[in-house]
């Protein structure tokens, strides 16, 4: 029997596959398609203190093997998420990773403190890297000192382990990773989207109302993989890797690069069954490759 289980701070995962934040809402829609208890975990949509309506539309645009989005952290706010979304999710046997966003340190602290007390929230993912909010968000993820301090502040109040979600839009991602490690982070999730833009060749106007958006999907996989590889070699933190995962071999690649678990974002829109499909194929693929467990594969590329 191939063992898919992975143990991470706060998380006992049945398998290393989970939907990425913002690409799965709070699970309700996908629950109509399959049993969410199959998933390793669920990363829910970013939660902010107050409800947010996000950016004007169009909010998405297609690009070659990728897409841009500028949703802008639309969410029902801390009360809405804790009151209705998380409670609803309790019916499933699946750990929730709550994605926390804000524009000030106080915002992050407030959300982290409260949401970490929800019984099914087993870990926090601190989104210091969303490119689609005008203030705050992006700078937290690009300056090591700011990232360290935010990590410390969140760690001080969280009742569950804290994962920091890194932005790829930086010169040196290892320096940010090391800073959050120093700040006491329990793990890292990476990568968030690359900042990009699409124009309408007819009008010359940006297709996304917000002008720029975050690039995700298979197009960014090489960048994501390189960053996971670098960070996993140079820090001791466990990594939940993501960026362009769309099939079982992509998941294998992220584990090989050094991730301990893998999140699937954009691919859910292309194939809503992608997560259970990868989970189903993983044991056979591991067996073919000569591995008895998913765990053995982690960081395989470093050992070669």
């Amino acid at each position, binding site marked *: 029997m191939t063992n898919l289980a992975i143990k991470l701070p706060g998380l006992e995962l049945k398998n290393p596959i989970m939907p990425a934040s913002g*690409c799965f809402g709070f699970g309700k829609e996908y629950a109509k398609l399959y049993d969410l208890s199959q998933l390793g975990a669920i990363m829910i949509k970013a939660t902010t203190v107050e409800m947010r*309506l996000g950016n004007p539309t169009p*909010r998405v645009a297609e690009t070659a*093997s990728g897409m841009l989005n500028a949703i802008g952290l639309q969410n029902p706010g801390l009360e809405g998420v804790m009151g209705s979304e998380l409670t609803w999710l309790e019916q499933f046997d699946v750990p929730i990773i709550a994605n926390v966003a804000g524009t000030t340190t106080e915002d992050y602290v407030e959300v982290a403190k409260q949401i970490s007390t929800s019984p099914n929230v087993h870990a926090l993912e601190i989104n210091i890297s969303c490119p689609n909010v005008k203030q705050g968000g992006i700078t937290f993820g690009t300056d090591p000192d700011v990232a360290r301090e935010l990590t410390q502040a969140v760690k001080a109040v969280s009742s569950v382990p804290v994962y920091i979600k890194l932005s790829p839009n930086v010169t040196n991602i290892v320096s940010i990773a090391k800073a959050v490690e120093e700040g006491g982070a329990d793990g890292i999730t990476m990568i968030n989207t690359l900042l990009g833009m699409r124009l309408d060749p007819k009008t010359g106007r940006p297709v996304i109302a917000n002008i720029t958006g975050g690039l995700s999907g298979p197009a960014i996989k090489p960048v994501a993989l390189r960053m996971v590889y670098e960070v996993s070699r140079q820090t001791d933190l466990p990594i939940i890797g993501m960026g362009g995962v769309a099939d079982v071999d992509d998941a294998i690649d992220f584990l090989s690069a050094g991730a301990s678990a893998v999140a699937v974002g954009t691919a*859910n829109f292309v194939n809503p069954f992608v997560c259970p499909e990868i989970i189903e194929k993983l044991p056979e693929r591991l067996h073919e490759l000569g591995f008895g467990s998913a765990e053995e594969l982690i960081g395989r590329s470093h050992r070669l």
Partner: protein
Amino acid sequence: MIRQQHMTVVSQQEIAHRIFELTVEGDLVNDMMAPGQFVHIRVADSYEPLLRRPISVASYDKEKRQFTMIYRAEGRGTNLLAEKRPGDGLDVLGPLGNGFPVEEAAKKAYLIGGGIGVPPLYELSKALNGRGIETVHILGFESKSAVFYEAKFKELGDTHIATVDGSHGTEGFVTHILNELPKDFDAYFSCGPTAMLEAVQWAYPEKKGFLSYEQRMGCGIGACFACVCRTTKSETDYIKVCSDGPVFRAGVVIS
């Protein structure tokens, strides 16, 4: 129930300039519930183009397990779709969204469509006629070469055509026709460009109306928040076109 199904292309035909009528077969048709629903199509087994394309159901036949779409081959995705041949497979996610509430019409309904907003009105008209409701069709197109289904709509009721360049029917927009028609209907149903929907709402503020909206989509099922619109209900209220719509009562959506 929403399914993702590998359906089979039954026929594909160019019925007007770059306008294609595509019929596919599969069990997914069993779950179709109302005219105005749509499907989300993966046009190629490649990451480029990556996203699915939303296309309305123009008509469906549960006995034959077939449904028909009508679309304009315009960009990358719809041009690839136009290459599909009978026997080819097609990856369809659906049926999606809520359709037109046929039960809201009492005696006579106006069906107002523009361009590629016309197709869902066909199944709607059949359904209304099936309930004994008189339908009047007011359809706008770019020009004569883009007109389709005129005869089919005529079989179901009075049909008025407007073309922007005047090459067929009335010159101008559907609103030019609406101005000339009596207001003796009890409900209207409309699908087309947002500007047209706005104009139609303005034309009949006192009538019961149902409008089908378009938005750029990601997931198509309500999970990604790509396709939202604010509503007139409150500052913080919003709807998702894909899962709460695409059909909404007139006066609700701020577009």
